[in-house]
């Protein structure tokens, strides 16, 4: 099999934040890739660096306090991290779209939807106002907002949360980016709206060749949407696999723990209690030498405290960072 060149390849990215309390090690030396037309999910607990890992490649983390220590983000072979702010402007929106977690705050309350939607279209598509308006109406229709023509005159507060998120998605889709990054787009929404957004994302996947990075902590969403999954913990990648392998032949204790804490309707018995992961993620201020998950891991051995396990291939297209082979419980 000839390996295709990925659309986006992140190599050895390390991001820190300099705060009054010390240095926060947000991302420690992570590498991953996204192929063309592929949907990759990044999962993990709050504060594990999911958002920072994508925001930093677009230059959207504040610097200072943030600092990208080293690493590359190759998009179509060009390193985004070495670009100036002006050079990045051409990539934002046009090539890489971004959808935010909270639709209530990601739209400007003082501008009409028309202004917000058409502004970027005019800039990136180089069309006039009327054409941009037509495009906006077309895409609002695509995301299921009826009466788009009238709705364009509204201000964001006249939209419901789900409609705002759909409008945000329409805004990004209208720019036709090659890569769409969705930063927990369903977290702030109630379940029925979540379902709408996920259906919409599926439809987009079918209709376009858009690649997606879907950041979430909802493993249900992962199973529905993603082809590949990256599990992050404390700024590091714990496991990376295609979605079927991840759910059915899990190779990392953290992923196992995450899956056990997920309510299932299909095979778990009523009497079985839902498992939670004991303890909480380690502080990002001082990095311990060993595995960051060691203090919460049920498989822990002495070696885990001393040396950080490298992210190694355990099967084809399946990597895990653990000293233990969880299928046998023996050290690898």
């Amino acid at each position, binding site marked *: 099999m000839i390996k295709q060149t990925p659309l986006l390849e992140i190599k050895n990215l390390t991001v820190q934040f300099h705060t009054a309390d010390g240095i926060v090690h947000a991302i420690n030396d992570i590498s991953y890739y996204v192929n063309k037309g592929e949907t990759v999910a990044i999962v993990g607990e709050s504060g594990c660096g999911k958002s920072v890992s994508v925001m930093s490649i677009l230059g959207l983390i504040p610097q200072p306090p943030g600092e990208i220590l080293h690493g590359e983000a190759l998009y179509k072979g060009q390193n985004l991290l070495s670009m100036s702010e002006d050079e990045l402007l051409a990539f934002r929106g046009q090539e890489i779209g971004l959808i935010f977690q909270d639709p209530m705050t990601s739209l*400007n309350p003082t501008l009409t939807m028309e202004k917000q939607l058409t502004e970027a279209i005019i800039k990136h598509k180089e069309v006039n106002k009327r054409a941009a308006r037509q495009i906006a109406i077309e895409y609002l229709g695509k995301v299921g907002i009826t009466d788009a023509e009238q709705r364009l005159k509204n201000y964001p507060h006249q939209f419901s949360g789900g409609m705002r998120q759909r409008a945000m998605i329409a805004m990004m889709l209208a720019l036709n980016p090659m890569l769409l990054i969705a930063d927990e787009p369903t977290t702030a929404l109630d379940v029925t709206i979540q379902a709408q957004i996920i259906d919409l994302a599926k439809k987009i996947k079918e209709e376009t060749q858009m690649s997606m990075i879907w950041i979430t902590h909802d493993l249900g969403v992962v199973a529905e949407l993603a082809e590949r999954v990256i599990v992050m913990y404390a700024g590091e990648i714990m496991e990376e696999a295609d979605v079927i392998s991840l759910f059915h032949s899990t190779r990392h204790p953290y992923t196992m723990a995450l899956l056990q804490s997920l309510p299932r309707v299909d095979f778990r018995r009523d009497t079985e209690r839902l498992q939670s992961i004991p303890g909480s993620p380690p502080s990002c201020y001082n990095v311990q030498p060993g595995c960051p998950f060691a203090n919460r891991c049920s498989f822990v051995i002495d070696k885990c405290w001393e040396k950080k396990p490298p992210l190694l291939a355990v099967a084809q297209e399946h990597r895990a960072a653990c000293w233990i082979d969880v299928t046998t419980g023996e050290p690898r």
Partner: protein
Amino acid sequence: MSMSEAAPKVFEQIPDKPPLSIQKMIWMRFRRHKMALVGAVIMVLLFVFCFGGALFFPEAEANRTDTSIRLAPPSAEHPFGTDPIGRDIFRRAVYGGQISLLIGISAAFLGVSIGVVVGSLAGYFGGWLDSLLMRITEALLSIPRIFLLLVLANFLSDKFPDVEFAGRTYSGSVVGIVLMIGLMGWMGLARIVRAEFLSLKENDFVTAARATGTPNWEIILKHILPNTIAPIVVSATLGVADAILGESYISFLGMGVRAPTATWGNMLERSYAYIDTAPWLWIFTGFFILITILSINFVGDGIRDALDPRSRTA
């Protein structure tokens, strides 16, 4: 028969009332503020008085001296009386009001412009630019305004040539006063705008704008500035009152607008000596200044309440 036909018609179709536009909502809220309404009406009347009155007699009449009728008390011919060199106070109040209001508006405009630019640059970009601009702001704020104005007035007021504008000649000192008051009146607003920018730039919609490739100047102008419009409008309104008062101070102390151009401030200049003997010298002019400042402040209050986004009542 299908279900929909059989279903009883329970809900009356209420036609959608178009939602209140922002402008209508602001007007509704402003209208509830009775004093602001009164203030607005008085402001309109003052403008009519100053600019409409000028239609009935030329400026020369307001500047004509006639020592034979000096210090005449109010009469039918001279409703507000005459001053120590026999000029008609009513006519001077009309033309002086024009200058005072013009000074107020243009100085406030200048001050607001500088304040907005300084505040948004400092707040948005932060870093050394913020430090530099804010230190300048603080330095200017730490000097008592009235002294600064007086010193500047001493140096500047006769440095400008007379200007022709709308068919009239204005003393160059008017330009000087506008510059002085404008250049000294932006610091408060700059701080407010900076603070607004500091908090607004952290919003997701700013990151969203950046994520769609919006350049910085566009984010400042189109995305953040509209959110700060309330404090800017309020500050602009109150700035007009401040500038009128400032001009009055300076002119009262004899360093402001030079005669023969009248302003409410310099009309008071010599009345101090006649405070008991010819009270009409200061009563009328002082009254004009008083009600102007009061009405502007009430209007500013009303606008502040009307634009306050936290107010939920429509």
